[in-house]
C-alpha cells in the first residue's frame, strides 16, 4: 500500500491492445520519491507498455493511477507532462531538423522561454549540449541529453527512461549514470527501464521485475544479486515440450567468420561474431531484441552490408552477394516482419506464393507471361500442405490471419527446397496452434538434414528447438552451448551481459561477478 513517500502508485493495471494482445495482467507498481527505480524484464514483459500508460501515451484497459496521492486520468502525453511526468523514449521525440534549443522550447508559451535558464540548467545538471547545433548532426548520446534537458526544463520531476543505454557507447553510458545520480541528488525521481542486469545493479535503488505482464517481485538493489534477478526475469512455466530426436549434424553448411555489421545509426550492431550451422541441426540465437540479431540475419541473407568478415554458404564465399544469388544457392529466409518483408499484403495468395521464385520456367513463359495455371497449383499445394485457412488462391494475403500469413511465408520459403533456412522470429504474434505447427516444421526440416538458423526473442522457443544455442548481447556472442547444459540463471546472466567464461560454475563464482 502506498505510503507518504510514494510519488507514483499504479494499481491493478490491465492493458489489452485492440488486437487482443494482453500486455499487462494486473500490475501494481510503486515508486518512492527521489529514488532511481529499475523496471526489469524481457521483451514483451510489459515494461514499456506500463510506462507508456504512466506517461499518458496509452490508456489502461482498467486500473488506477495515483500521482503524489492524487488520482489521475491522463488523456495525452502533454497532460502527464503537466503533472511532472516525462518519458524519454528509445526513439527520441525530437525534431531532427531543429536545433537543440528549438527542440527544448517547442510548444512552450513565450514568457516561459528563457535561454539563460536553460544554460543554468545545463550547469546544474551537468547535461552539456551545443544549443545551436541541429539535432540531426548530433550523436545519439547528445540527443538523449537534449531530450532529458527538454523534460527537466518543463519541470519534470518523474523522469522515465526507456532502455536509455541501447544506443550509447560505454563512456556515454557512464556519463548518463553520473547524470542520473546527480538528478537524484536534486530530488528527481527516475524510472529506469532495462533488461541489463549490470545496469540495474549499478544505478538503481530498487527494482521491480516484470514477466509476461505480471510483477514477479520488488527488491532493494542492495540486497539483490545478478543470479536472483536473472531467475526472476527469465524463470517461467514451460508451456509445452516438443518431441525431438537427437540431432545428427553433418557438414557445416553456413559458416560465419568474424562478422562485423553496422546498424542504421552507423554504430556497430554486430561485433565480430563467428559460428557455423551444420546440416541436420538447429542453431539458435537467443537474446533480448535489439542486440544485433536483426542486423546479423540481414547480413547473412544479403540485405545488409558486411563491413568485415565472411559469410560462407556451402563452401562458397557469399559475403555481400545479392539475395537473389543466395536464394538460388538454396538459402531460404523467413523474415522477422512477415507483413513488411515476407508478403505483399495487397497481392493475392497465389502471387505471394511465387514471390522470389516467379522467374522459374515453371511460372513464367517466353513472353514474360505468368503461367497462372501452374502458379495456382503451386499455391494450392502450399495451402494444403501447410493447412492454411484461406478463402482461395485469389484472396489478398491481407485477408489471412497472422498465423496463416506466416504459414504462407514458411510454405513458400520451404517450397524452394532449401539447404539452409534462416528463420527470424518465426512464431512472433502467432497463436499456440500455429506456433506449435511452425516449430514442428522447423524440426522436421532439421530431421531432413537441412541446416536451420533460428533467431528468436522467445527464450522457450530457442531453448526447446535448438541443438546448440548462442546468446547475443550488444552485438557479441556471450557463449555458445547446448541448451540442456545451461541453467535458466546462466542464460539470464548472459542475456544481461555476462560472458559464459565468467560463469562456468555459477554457485562458486559470485565473487568473480561482483569483482567485474
Amino acid at each position, binding site marked *: 500500500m502506498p505510503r507518504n513517500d510514494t510519488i507514483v502508485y499504479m494499481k491493478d493495471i490491465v492493458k489489452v491492445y485492440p488486437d487482443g494482445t494482453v500486455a499487462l495482467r494486473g500490475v501494481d507498481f510503486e515508486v518512492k520519491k527521489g529514488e532511481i527505480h529499475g523496471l526489469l524484464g524481457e521483451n514483451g514483459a510489459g515494461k514499456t507498455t506500463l510506462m507508456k500508460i504512466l506517461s499518458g*501515451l*496509452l490508456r489502461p484497459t482498467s486500473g488506477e493511477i495515483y500521482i503524489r496521492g492524487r488520482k489521475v486520468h491522463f488523456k*495525452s*502525453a*502533454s497532460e502527464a*507532462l*503537466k503533472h511532472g511526468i516525462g518519458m524519454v523514449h528509445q526513439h527520441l*521525440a*525530437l*525534431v*531532427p*531538423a*531543429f536545433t537543440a534549443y*528549438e*527542440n527544448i*522550447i*517547442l*510548444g*512552450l*508559451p*513565450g514568457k516561459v*522561454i528563457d535561454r539563460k535558464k536553460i544554460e543554468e540548467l545545463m550547469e546544474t545538471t551537468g547535461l552539456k549540449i551545443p544549443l545551436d547545433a541541429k539535432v540531426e548532426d548530433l550523436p545519439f548520446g547528445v540527443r538523449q541529453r537534449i531530450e532529458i534537458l*527538454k523534460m527537466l526544463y*518543463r519541470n519534470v520531476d518523474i523522469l522515465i527512461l526507456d532502455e536509455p543505454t541501447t544506443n550509447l557507447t560505454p563512456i556515454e553510458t557512464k556519463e548518463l549514470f553520473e547524470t542520473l545520480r546527480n538528478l537524484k541528488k536534486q530530488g528527481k525521481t527516475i524510472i529506469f527501464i532495462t533488461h541489463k542486469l549490470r545496469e540495474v545493479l549499478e544505478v538503481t535503488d530498487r527494482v521491480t521485475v516484470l514477466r509476461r505482464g505480471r510483477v514477479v517481485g520488488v527488491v532493494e538493489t542492495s540486497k539483490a544479486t545478478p543470479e536472483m534477478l536473472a531467475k526472476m526475469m527469465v524463470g517461467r512455466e514451460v508451456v509445452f515440450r516438443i518431441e525431438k530426436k537427437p540431432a545428427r549434424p553433418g557438414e557445416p553448411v553456413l559458416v560465419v567468420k568474424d562478422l562485423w555489421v553496422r546498424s542504421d545509426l552507423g554504430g556497430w550492431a554486430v561485433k565480430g561474431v563467428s559460428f557455423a550451422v551444420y546440416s541436420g541441426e538447429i542453431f539458435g540465437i537467443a537474446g533480448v531484441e535489439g542486440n544485433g540479431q536483426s542486423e546479423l540475419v540481414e547480413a547473412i541473407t544479403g540485405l545488409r552490408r558486411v563491413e568485415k568478415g565472411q559469410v560462407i554458404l556451402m563452401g562458397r564465399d557469399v559475403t555481400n552477394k545479392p539475395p537473389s544469388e543466395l536464394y538460388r544457392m538454396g538459402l531460404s529466409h523467413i523474415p522477422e516482419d512477415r507483413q513488411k518483408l515476407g508478403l505483399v499484403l495487397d497481392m493475392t495468395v497465389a502471387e505471394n506464393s511465387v514471390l522470389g521464385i516467379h522467374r522459374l520456367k515453371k511460372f513464367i513463359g517466353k513472353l514474360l507471361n505468368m503461367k497462372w495455371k501452374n502458379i495456382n497449383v503451386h499455391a494450392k499445394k502450399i495451402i494444403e500442405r501447410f493447412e492454411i485457412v484461406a478463402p482461395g488462391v485469389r484472396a489478398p494475403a491481407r485477408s489471412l490471419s497472422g498465423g496463416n500469413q506466416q504459414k504462407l511465408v514458411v510454405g513458400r520459403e520451404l517450397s524452394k527446397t532449401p539447404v539452409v533456412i534462416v528463420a527470424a522470429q518465426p512464431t512472433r504474434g502467432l497463436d499456440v496452434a500455429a506456433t506449435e505447427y511452425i516449430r514442428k516444421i522447423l524440426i522436421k526440416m532439421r530431421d531432413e538434414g537441412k541446416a536451420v538458423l533460428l533467431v528468436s526473442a522467445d527464450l522457450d522457443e530457442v531453448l526447446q528447438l535448438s541443438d546448440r544455442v548462442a546468446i547475443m548481447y550488444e552485438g557479441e556472442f556471450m557463449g555458445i552451448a547446448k541448451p540442456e547444459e545451461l541453467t535458466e540463471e546462466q542464460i539470464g546472466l548472459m542475456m544481461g551481459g555476462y560472458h559464459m567464461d565468467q560463469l562456468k560454475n555459477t554457485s562458486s563464482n559470485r565473487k568473480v561477478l561482483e569483482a567485474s
Partner: protein
Amino acid sequence: MTEELVMILDILRGTSYAMTPLILAAVGEIVAERAGIVNIGLEGIMLLSGFMAVVFAEMAMNPWIGVLAGIGMGALIGLIHGYITAYLKGDHIISGLGINLFALGTVAFGIEAVWGVRGYYTPPLEAKVPIIPGIEISPLFIVMILITIGTYYLLYKTSIGLKIRAVGENPEAADVVGVNVELTQLLSAVYGAALAGLAGAFLSIDWLAAITKELPAGRGFIALALVNFANWNPILALGGGALFGFFWTLAEWIKNMAAIKAIIPVTLMNTIPYIATIAVVAGLIGRSRPPAHVGRPYKRE
C-alpha cells in the same frame, strides 16, 4: 528617356505583376506544407477567388471588397481542405484535386449564370484595383512583399512558427509537448489557401482585369513548383518568384516582336514560361529538402 530605358522599365513592371500571384500562392503554400499539409488545389482556389472577387467588387463598386472576398473564398476552401486532411486524415492529393475540379466546373457555370456571357467577362473600371500613381505598379505588389517578409518572420522568429515547422517535421514530438497538431495544421492550411485566394483576386480585378475559367493559367501549379524551388523558405520564394515572373514577361515581350512573330508561332512561344519552370525545377530535384512529415496524415497510436 531613351527607348531602351523605357523597354527595360516595361519589362520590370511586367515582372512585378507576373511574380505577385506566384509568390503569394507559394508563400501561403510554404506555411501549409511546413505544417505538413499539401494543397495542390492552389490553381482551383485562384480561379474561385478570382471569380468571387469580380462578383463582389462589381456589386460594391469597390475593388477592396473584391480583394477581401477573394481572400475569404480562399480561407473557406482552406478550412475545408484543412478539416479533411488534418482532422479526417484524408488524402491531401485527392482533396486538392477535388478543389481544382470543383473550381473549373463552378466558375465556368458561374460566369454564365452571373453575367449571362460565355467564358469571358471584364469588370468595370471602378471594380479594378487602382495603380499607385507615379511608379505605376500595383499596391498588391507592395502587400505581397510585406506578406512574404512577415511570413518569414512568423515561421522563423516566433514560437508559432516553431510549432508550425515542428508539426510538419515530427508531429509526434510536437504532440508530446502539448502542441495541438490538428489545429496548427488547420490554421496553416487556411492561411495558405487565403493567400492563394488573394493571388486569384489580384489576377481578376487587378492585373488581368478579367475573369475566364483559364484565369490562373497554370500559375497555381507553378507556385507549387516554386515552393520546392524555394526549399520551403518564403524569402527564397520571393527571389524565385521574381525569376519566374521575369521569364514570363520576357517571353510575352519577345513573342510580340514583329521579327520573331513572323518565324515562330505565338502558341509555341506561349509555352516558354512553362518550359522555363520545368527546366529550373528539374535541375533542383533532390537538392531541396521538404518537411519530413509533409503530405502524410498524422495518426496517434
